[in-house]
C-alpha cells in the first residue's frame, strides 16, 4: 500500500523533474515540475478526435494500458512492506501484465491504418521483445542469490546480505535505468522531442490519440518511470523504518529523474538500426550479473 501511494505521488512530478534538468542543462530556466501533469489534466478535460478508420480496439487500448501499469505497480513492495499483490513468481506476472498493455497499444496503432503508426508499432514490438530477457535474467539472478521468487522476499533478503549485494544492486540499477529508458522510449533509443515522425517510436504510435486517451497514455509514461524508480529504490532500502525509507525513496527517485535528464541532455539518439545492439548489451550485463551471483555463491564448477 505504501509503495502504491508513493509511486502515484512520485508520478506527478517525475517527468517534470526530467524536463527541468534538461532545460537547466541547456541553459534555460524551464517549466515548473508540475507542468507535465497540468498538461495531462488539461488533456483529460478535452474532447477527442477519432479517425474513421479506427474501431473499438483504438478506444479500449489506452484504458487497458493504464490498467496494466496500475496492476504492475500494485506488485511493487516498499522495503520490508510487501506490495498489495505479492506471491511467488509475481515478477513474471509483472512483466506479462505490462506486455498485455503493450500488445493493445501496438494493435491500436495499427488500427489507425497509418504508415507512421505502423512503423512505430513495429519498432515498439521488436524493442520491447528484445528488452524482456534482461529483466527476467536480473530477477532470476536475484532469485538465485536470495533463494526466493517474489519481489518482496527477494528485496527483503537482499538487504540483509553481504556488501557484495550492493555491487550487484548497482549493476542491476544500471540495467533497470536503461530498461526504463527503453520502455518509456526515451533518449538513447528514441527521441520523443524529434520533429520527424520517421525517427520516433512511441510518440509516432500515439499520433492519432487525442483528448482523454492521450492524457491516459502520457500519464502512463509518468507512472512507468515512477514504477521503475521504485523498483530501483528497492535494491537499496531494506528494513529501514518508514520515516527514513520514505525520504530515501524520494531521494532515489530524484536522482533517477536527474540521471534520466542528464542522459537525455548529453546522449544523442542511436541510429535505429543500432538500437538492437544496444539492447543486447543490457542482456549481456544481466548475464554478467547472473554469473556474478553464481561466482559469489560458489556454484561455478
Amino acid at each position, binding site marked *: 500500500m505504501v509503495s502504491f501511494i508513493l509511486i502515484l505521488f512520485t508520478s506527478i512530478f517525475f517527468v517534470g523533474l526530467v524536463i527541468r534538468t534538461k532545460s537547466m542543462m541547456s541553459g534555460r530556466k524551464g517549466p515548473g515540475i508540475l507542468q507535465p501533469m497540468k498538461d495531462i489534466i488539461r488533456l*483529460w478535460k478535452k*474532447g*477527442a*478526435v*477519432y*479517425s*474513421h*478508420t*479506427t*474501431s473499438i*480496439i483504438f*478506444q*479500449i487500448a*489506452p*484504458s*487497458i494500458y*493504464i*490498467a*496494466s501499469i496500475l*496492476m504492475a505497480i500494485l506488485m511493487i513492495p516498499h522495503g520490508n512492506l510487501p506490495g498489495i*499483490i505479492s*506471491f511467488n*513468481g509475481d515478477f*513474471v*506476472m509483472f512483466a*506479462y501484465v505490462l*506486455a*498485455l498493455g*503493450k*500488445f493493445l497499444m*501496438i*494493435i491500436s496503432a*495499427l488500427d*489507425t*491504418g*497509418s*504508415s*507512421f*503508426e*505502423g512503423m512505430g*508499432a*513495429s519498432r515498439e514490438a*521488436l524493442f520491447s*521483445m*528484445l528488452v*524482456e530477457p534482461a529483466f*527476467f*535474467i536480473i530477477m*532470476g539472478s536475484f*532469485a*538465485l542469490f536470495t533463494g526466493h*521468487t517474489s519481489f518482496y522476499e527477494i528485496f527483503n533478503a537482499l538487504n540483509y546480505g553481504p556488501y557484495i549485494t550492493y555491487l550487484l544492486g548497482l549493476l542491476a540499477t544500471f540495467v533497470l535505468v536503461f530498461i526504463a529508458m527503453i520502455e518509456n522510449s526515451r533518449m538513447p533509443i528514441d527521441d520523443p522531442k524529434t520533429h520527424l*515522425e520517421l525517427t520516433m517510436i512511441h510518440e509516432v504510435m500515439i*499520433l492519432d490519440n487525442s*483528448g*482523454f*486517451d492521450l492524457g*491516459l497514455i502520457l500519464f502512463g509514461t509518468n507512472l512507468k518511470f515512477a514504477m521503475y524508480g521504485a523498483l530501483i529504490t528497492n535494491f537499496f532500502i531494506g528494513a529501514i523504518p518508514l520515516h527514513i525509507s520514505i525520504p530515501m525513496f524520494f531521494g532515489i527517485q530524484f536522482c533517477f529523474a536527474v540521471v534520466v535528464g542528464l542522459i537525455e541532455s548529453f546522449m544523442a539518439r542511436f541510429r535505429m538500426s543500432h538500437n538492437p545492439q544496444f539492447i543486447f548489451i543490457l542482456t549481456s550485463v544481466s548475464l554478467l550479473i547472473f554469473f556474478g551471483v*553464481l561466482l559469489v555463491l560458489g*556454484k561455478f564448477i
Partner: protein
Amino acid sequence: MMIKTLLEIVQLMALVLVVLTPFLRLRWLGFTAIFTITAQVVICSVLAFHVFSNGLFEHTYTGTFTTGPIAIRIDYLSAWFILVISFTFLTGAWYGIQYLKKYQGEATLMKIHAAAYIIVYTSLIDICVVQNSIVFLVVWEIMALGSFMLVIFEHYKRETIKAGINFLIQSHVAIVFLTMAFLWVKVKTGSYDFAVITEYTTVYPIFGTGIFLVFFVGFGIKAGFVPFHTWLPVAHPAAPAHISGIMSGVIIKIGIYGILRMLTLVEANFTFLGYFMLFISILTGLYGVMLAIVQHNLKRLLAYHSIENIGIIGIGIGLGCLGIGTTQPWMIVTGFGGALLHTLNHSLFKSLLFFSAGTVYQITHTMNIEALGGLIKKMPRTAILFLTGAVAICGLPPFNGFVSEFMIFTGLYKGLLSNQFGSTIILLFSILALVLIGGLAMICFTKAFGIVFLGTGRSDLPVETNPEKPLHVWPLYAIGFMMLLIGIFPFLFSPYLEKTIGLFRFNTPINAADILAPGMDFLTIIGLYSAILVAMGAILYIVRNSIGSRRNSPDCTWGCGYVGTSTKLQYSASSFVRTYRKLFEAILMIHKKKTMAFGLYPKTIEQTTHAYDKIEYVVIDKPIKMFRGFLNRFVFLQNGNVQYYVLYGFIFISIAILLPLLINRILHVLQILKNI
C-alpha cells in the same frame, strides 16, 4: 464394467456410421454425423470423468494369437487427453458442418470426409486407452490414414495433394520408429503389453534411455518437434479450416501423449532426458516462432505457431524430467502440470484461431495477410474471437495461455535455485527462451491481428454479406468461454491436473498429494489477479467513457496533412516485420526478388519475399536431392526395352535360386577350413 460397455458403444457407433455413410443422403449425412460425434463425445466425457472420480480402469481382452492379450487401461493421463480431444472434436464438428456448406455439390467427398472424421476421433480415443503394442500401432495407422483423408479434402488442388502425401510419408516414418521401439521391447521381453516396458527398463535403465529416444523420434514427428516439424506447416494450410484446427489442436498432441505415456513407463536416466528435452524444446519453440513471424499465409503462420507451442510444452516436460532426475518434486509438479495444462490450452486457442481464420477465408477467399485488412468492421465477432486467441497464445493474462506459461516459469525459477551448475545453466537458458518466445509471439500476433483485421482493406476482395450466423459462431464462443474460464478460475481444473501429475514418478518418500495440494494454490491466486486486471480495465474504460467522450468528433487518420484515403499508405505485414527480419537474417532463409527502376519512364517495379525453412532445406531437401542424384546413376537400367526387363527378371530368379546354394557352398568350405 460400465466403462467397458461405454467404450465398446463408442467403437460401435463409429462402425455403424462408417457403414451407413454411403447410403445416406447428403442432408441426413450432416445430421447423422453431428449426432454421432456429439454422442461419442458425451460418452467419452462421462467415461473420463468417471475415471477421474473412481481411479484407474483396467480390462484385458483375450486377443488373438498374433496380438496376445489386449490390455485396456484408462488412467488419469488417458482421461485428461480424452477430454482435450473430445472438446476440440466437438467444436470442430459443429464449426465444420457450417464451413462445409460451400461444398454441398460434392456428395462423395463429404461422405468420405464425415466417415474419416469419425474414424480419426475414435482412433484417437483408442490410442489413449490401448496398451498393447500391436493394437496400438494398428490404431495409430488408422489415425494416420484417417487424418490423411481429412487433409486432402480438396484433393483436386495440386498443393493440397502434395501436402497430403508429404504428411502421409512423414507419418509413416514416425510409425517406423514406433515399430522399432516396440519390437525392441517385444524381442527382449516377449510381450506386447506396455507394462513390460517398465519391467524391462528397470533392469536395464540404460536401454530405457535408448528406447525412450527411439519413441521420442516417432512421437516427435507427430508432435512436430524441430527438426521433425517439416510436414506441419505444409499440411495445416492445405486442410479445410476445421481440420487444421483439429490437427493443430489435438492430432499433434497425440505425439505429446505418447511421450508422456512413455515417461510414465520407462525407467531411464531422467536427468539426461531432461537436458535432452529442454534442448530440443528450446530449439523447437524459438525456431517455430521465428519462422512464424515472416509467414504471409495466415494458416501457415498459425501452423508454425503450433511448433512453437509444442516447444513450450516440451520445456514443461523437460523440466519435469529434470525434476525426476534430481528428485525435486516441485519441478515435477510445475513441469508436467504446465505441460499438461498447456496442451489443453493450446488445443483451445489454436482451434479458435484456425476456426476464425477459416471464417476469414470463407468470406474473402484468401489467406494472404497482405491482401486483407479492416475486417473488424465487416466481421466484428470473428475479429474479437481472433483477438482473444491471439492474446491467449502470447501467454498474456487474463487468458489461459498465461496460466500454463506462468506455471512453467515458476518451476524454472524454482529449479534455478537447485545446486547443480549444469541444471542452473540450462534452466536459465530455458527462461531466456520462454521469454523470447513470448516476445516474438507478440510481434507475430500483433502483425497477424493488426494487418488482417485492422486498418482498411488492402485489396478488393469479394465480401459476402452476413457472414457470421449464430450457428457458425457459437462453437467459437464456447472455446473462448473455456479459455477465459481457465484464465480466471484455474483452480476448477487443478484437481484433475493434480491427479494426472501424480502418475509421474516422484522418487521421494513424500506422498505426491502432499506436495500437490499447496502447490496448486498459486493457480487460484493468479486467476484472482487476472480477474482484478480485467475489472480494472473495465472500470477505467467506463470512467473514460463517462468523462472523456463529450466532445468527440470523427475525422480521418493523420497523414502529415494528406487527407485523401488511400489504402496503400498503410503499413504492410512485410514492412511490419522488416526490422525483425533484418536482425535475424542469418537464421531465416528468405528468397527475395526485386526489380529495380531505371530509365526515364520506369516500368512497374516489384519486390517479393518468400520465406523458406532452413532446417527443412538441410534435413529434407538436400539429402533427398543427393539421394536422387545417386539414384540417377542407375537410370540406364530403366531403358524401356522389354528384352532388358526379361533379362533382369531372369537374373533375379537365378540369384534367388543360386544364392542359398552359394551360401551353403561357402559355409561348407568354411567348415572344411575349420576342420583343417
